[in-house]
């Protein structure tokens, strides 16, 4: 089958091109950090340097925006994770009329452009005397990040064996004790994953934050403003550090997940 061979060859070539397309920009961006040039570029290469790291270290604007970003992310964790878990519990418990309407409402933030979420939050909360800033950013970001948390927790909750709940009640537990000792431990891995995701989503958000941050510049807004005014390879140094941070986090997460999968497999093995 020559056509089959042609297609499988073409597919492989395509994959190679695709992954180059995926990673080359990041590699070039990282490489530009070490170029001794006033602008972030790799052409021409005017000598290797580490000075942009120290320039970044000395940049007080970067530090204050990083602090703001971390504060926002922490706030989002506190707000979006409980909301997401609550709505997952709601969706897996109730049946009947009205559920599909609420389900649509719950999903709608995922299908709404981020700028709209930012704008509507800005307008609504100004009426309550709350202007742009860290608090408003937490509220606006949580509006859609909670939906991601909901999706991840619901996925695990749907596989929960409800007889465990009945067993707990039958043994005398109150509903709260059942939740605390049986349901919550079961949901823990999903909640942790959702929390990591929520944290990263918050850190990297730009479209929504742009409208609600006020004078509390976050890291993404700081980077964007740097790109347009006063661009130096210090931005690349920051990018490189963020890449290393996220890749590191991704790897820890992946290794942990694999180890857990292995442990689970070994336990099933000898039984």
């Amino acid at each position, binding site marked *: 089958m020559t056509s089959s061979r042609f297609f499988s060859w073409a597919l492989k070539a395509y994959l190679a091109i695709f992954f180059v397309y995926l990673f080359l920009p990041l590699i070039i961006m990282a490489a530009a950090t070490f170029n001794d040039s006033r602008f972030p570029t790799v052409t021409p290469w005017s000598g290797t340097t580490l000075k942009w790291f120290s320039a970044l270290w000395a940049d007080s604007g970067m530090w204050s925006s990083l602090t703001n970003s971390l504060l926002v992310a922490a706030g989002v964790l506190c707000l979006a994770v409980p909301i997401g878990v609550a709505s997952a519990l709601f969706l897996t418990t109730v049946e009947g009329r009205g559920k599909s309407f609420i389900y649509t409402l719950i999903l709608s933030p995922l299908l709404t452009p981020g700028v709209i979420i930012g704008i509507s939050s800005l307008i609504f909360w100004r009426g309550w005397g709350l202007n742009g800033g860290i608090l408003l950013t937490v509220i606006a970001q949580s509006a859609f990040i909670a939906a991601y948390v909901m999706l991840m927790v619901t996925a695990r909750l749907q596989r929960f064996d409800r007889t465990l709940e009945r067993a*707990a009640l039958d*043994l005398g537990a109150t509903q709260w*004790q059942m939740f605390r000792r049986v349901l919550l431990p079961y949901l823990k891995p999903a909640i942790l994953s959702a929390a990591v995701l929520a944290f990263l989503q918050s850190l990297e958000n730009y479209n929504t934050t742009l409208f609600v941050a006020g004078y509390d510049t976050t890291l993404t807004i700081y980077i964007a403003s740097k790109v347009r005014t006063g661009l130096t390879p210090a931005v690349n140094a920051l990018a490189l550090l963020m890449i290393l941070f996220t890749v590191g986090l991704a790897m820890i997460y992946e290794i942990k997940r694999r180890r857990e999968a292995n442990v689970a497999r070994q336990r*099933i093995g000898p039984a």
Partner: protein
Amino acid sequence: MDGRVSLDRVAMRFGDFTAIQPTSLEIQSGEFFSFLGPSGCGKTTLLNIISGFLTPSEGKVSIGGEEMIRVPVNRRPTAMIFQNLALFPLMSVYDNIEFGLEVRGVDRSARRRKADELLELVALGGSGHKPVSELSGGQKQRIAIARALAVEPRVLLLDEPLSALDLKLRQHMRTELKAIQRQTGITFIYITHDQGEALTMSDRVAVMSAGRIEQIADPMTLYRDPATAFVAGFVGENNRLAGHVTAADGELVTLDAGLAVAVSGRARQPLAVGDSASLYVRPEQWRVGTPDDLRLPFSGIVQAEHFEGAWLTLEVALDSGPTLRVQVPHVVTGDGVDAQLRVGGSCRLDYSPREAVVLPGAEPSPEAGEVADVAATA
């Protein structure tokens, strides 16, 4: 500890569907009581009503003389062994067993003492720190029992707990469950569709069909004196011969079942001449003889033979049409009756009327699948 359970006109409806017809019954303290019936007969619903997971549409439930309807699940003096056991997968064996005590605020050392005691009882001493996922099927079973006993229930409810085990283990666990019940003196209420389980372990069995209790009796009575066509067909194997009553002499009733000879058996309720009725004779109650043994009144031809170890099951077509299932002991030496029976050969048969039961009605019970239905076409 009073483990009496009484149901007073308990009924359960889901919309238009009646899951339980109004039912009253008394279970004695310390009794091993089983509900036996095919799936969908309402036995699990009844168990859920006793445990408190369901509130009946009407009627009263009391345990040890105390009214239970308003008592929520987690306050009832019952404990349940679930079909899939429902052990908490993320907890150790100790945590599972101690769960019920922990939520009652019992302190740690008392909990541990109780757990160790129970682990000894179920012969799993020393495995308290294991994660539940490392246990075998039989061990999980025992832990589930220990977990339920830890809360010192007055009544233990068991929802087909052995159905996930393989045959040998299942038979072994029957003995063990019965032993634990004797040792603890707790009322056991056992739900099953497996009559072997119900008959071997129970003091009394309630046979259920379509939301109704057909009969409550000890296993022996249930087998020898079925009260309804359903019970006659569902519990054990049976041959049914349908016809109408020609003579009634006290307990002994004679039927014309369209055969060469009239048949008779014991009736549990008075029947009048002319009533339609059915006679039930168990396969092992037939006496089988060679074709020349004219003391035996029925004759037929062997259609098929099934070797079952100790027994040989024959399908015998009577001369007048219906086919019977007949069991004869298998004799290894080769000089018993069974050595002379061949597929296609003829034989003669008889049974003792004292071992046959007559019940009203000529129609088979639609749900009693096991009946070898041999209603005469006459």
